[in-house]
């Protein structure tokens, strides 16, 4: 598949913060690239640069053969943006919203009717097309936000957390819609905090932290780097006598977290240390009630790479 978006050594700085630092990646037609990262990782800045509303300090961006520096208008015509905030007018009907925004991309009136109809059907809002968004639920507004971005049938779709704060049904519908768009050949950048969404739809994942890519590849490739890592979760009757430092002395134990009566131990399974961990629990006076183990998931990898510290 041809590379539709080529980002090379992109940099953007806001006063004292390096929002994007030497970022490079590509997106091909019919591919979904998931952008993952904690708050302030540079996802939205990257998206706004690609959307041409923000100027980068340096680096090259080529979209469908047009350079960001001198092909801004041509690039804008090819893009469909689903911003994090709902970019719709609440006081006019859903249909008028979609029609108005699609018309800005130069669609002919005759084609516009079918485009609007198709976009509303795709997001499951055709039956409510005459209603105003102010009467919609959060999930419906999010779906309308997507319809406004796809009605002009863009080759490239950029989505910035399109499923924030909605019910599972709407989320499922949105994810199905995105998978449909990929089938039609769109190049999609999908930014989110939800790991399971990326696992479900992304062909390629970029994990960003402090403006740089810290991991990249398919979900399987990224998780493979941590394939020996296992997280044991122990439910115990008391944690009163547990000493964290004792556990960290066991070979292969990387991390321990104690919360209420639950102890989570992240360990390297190659060390065959489960027996030692359980022995340590018993010798620390914990009455073991249940236990479970979990192989590395995208979420554990993400937290491992970006840390558990709260972000602004």
């Amino acid at each position, binding site marked *: 598949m041809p590379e539709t978006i080529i980002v090379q050594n992109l940099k953007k700085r806001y006063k004292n913060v390096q929002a994007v630092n030497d970022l490079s990646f590509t997106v091909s037609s019919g591919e979904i690239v998931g952008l993952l990262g904690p708050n302030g990782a540079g996802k939205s800045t990257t998206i706004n640069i690609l959307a041409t509303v*923000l100027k980068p300090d340096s680096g090259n961006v080529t979209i469908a053969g047009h350079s960001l520096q001198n092909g801004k208008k041509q690039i804008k015509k090819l893009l469909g943006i689903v*911003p994090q905030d709902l970019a719709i007018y609440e006081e006019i009907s859903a249909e008028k919203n979609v029609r*108005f925004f699609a018309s*800005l991309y130069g669609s002919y009136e005759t084609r516009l009717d079918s485009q609007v109809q198709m976009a509303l059907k795709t997001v499951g809002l055709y039956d409510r097309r005459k209603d105003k968004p102010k009467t919609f639920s959060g999930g419906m507004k999010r779906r309308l936000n997507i319809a406004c971005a796809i009605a002009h049938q863009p080759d490239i779709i950029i989505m910035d957390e399109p499923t924030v704060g909605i019910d599972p049904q709407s989320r499922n519908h949105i994810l199905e819609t995105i998978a449909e768009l990929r089938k039609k050949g769109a190049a999609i950048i999908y930014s989110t905090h939800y790991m399971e969404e990326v696992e479900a739809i992304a062909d390629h994942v970029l994990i960003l932290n402090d403006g740089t890519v810290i991991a990249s590849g398919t979900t399987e490739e990224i998780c493979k780097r941590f394939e020996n890592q296992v997280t044991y979760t122990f439910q115990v009757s008391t944690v009163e006598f547990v000493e964290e430092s004792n556990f960290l002395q066991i070979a292969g134990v990387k991390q321990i977290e104690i919360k209420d009566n639950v102890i989570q131990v992240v360990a390297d399974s190659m060390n065959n240390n489960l027996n030692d961990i359980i022995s340590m629990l018993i010798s620390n006076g914990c009455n073991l009630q249940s236990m479970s183990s979990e192989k590395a998931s995208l979420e554990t990898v993400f937290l491992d790479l970006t840390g558990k510290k709260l972000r602004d």
Partner: protein
Amino acid sequence: MNFFKIVKQDFINILHNPALIISNTMIPLILIGVLGFVTKSNFGTMPISAYDYQGVNMLILSVALLVAITTSNAFMEEKVMRGNMRIAYAPVSKLEMVLSKIVSSYVFVSICYGLLVPFCQYILGLNLGGSNFLWFTLLLNIFAFFGCCFGAMFCCIFRSEEQANSIMQIPLFIFIFLGGVLFRIHRLGNVVNMISNISPVKWVAGCSYQIIYDNDRHLLLPVITGLAALSLLCFLVCGLLFKPEEYV
């Protein structure tokens, strides 16, 4: 053309805002009624009644005070700003974005004051120039255009509707104070009188009295030229300072 589509949508957005409709139609009438009634004892009925006098003054004051706010609402009011964000992502130039807000609010206030002046003249019986009322309407209209550009400029400078609205009240009140439409300032001395010449409100008020009571239009062209020049200046500031990412 995208520009006209956006102007149309912006105009529809203004029509969905009852506060803007009321403030550009009912408020001037209420001000004329209240101030006309309060100052009735200071006037006879001929040649100028209190309502005639306050009619001219309050229409000018309303344009000075409310039109700029109408534009800042069309530009950055919370509800419309979300939709405007998507316009920033569309293939629309930033000048088209700014100009569409100015033009849509200008069309709206032109309709409002274009109806208010004949309503006051023919239905309420105020003297707004008799057969010259069209010249007075034209003057108010050009003044309203300046108000639109002024409101847009403050949005571009302060990048938020709330800040723009609260800060632009300061120069607007200074213009109104110096313009003498609330009370005469000639008693405050020569210095204040001289300074008052910087106020576009004073230009408009002076020109209006000439048109309405002296049937004299010699000030009309210089005042319109001055207002057009100020409007152009405001628009240039908008062009320099507006960044579409402010919507994002």
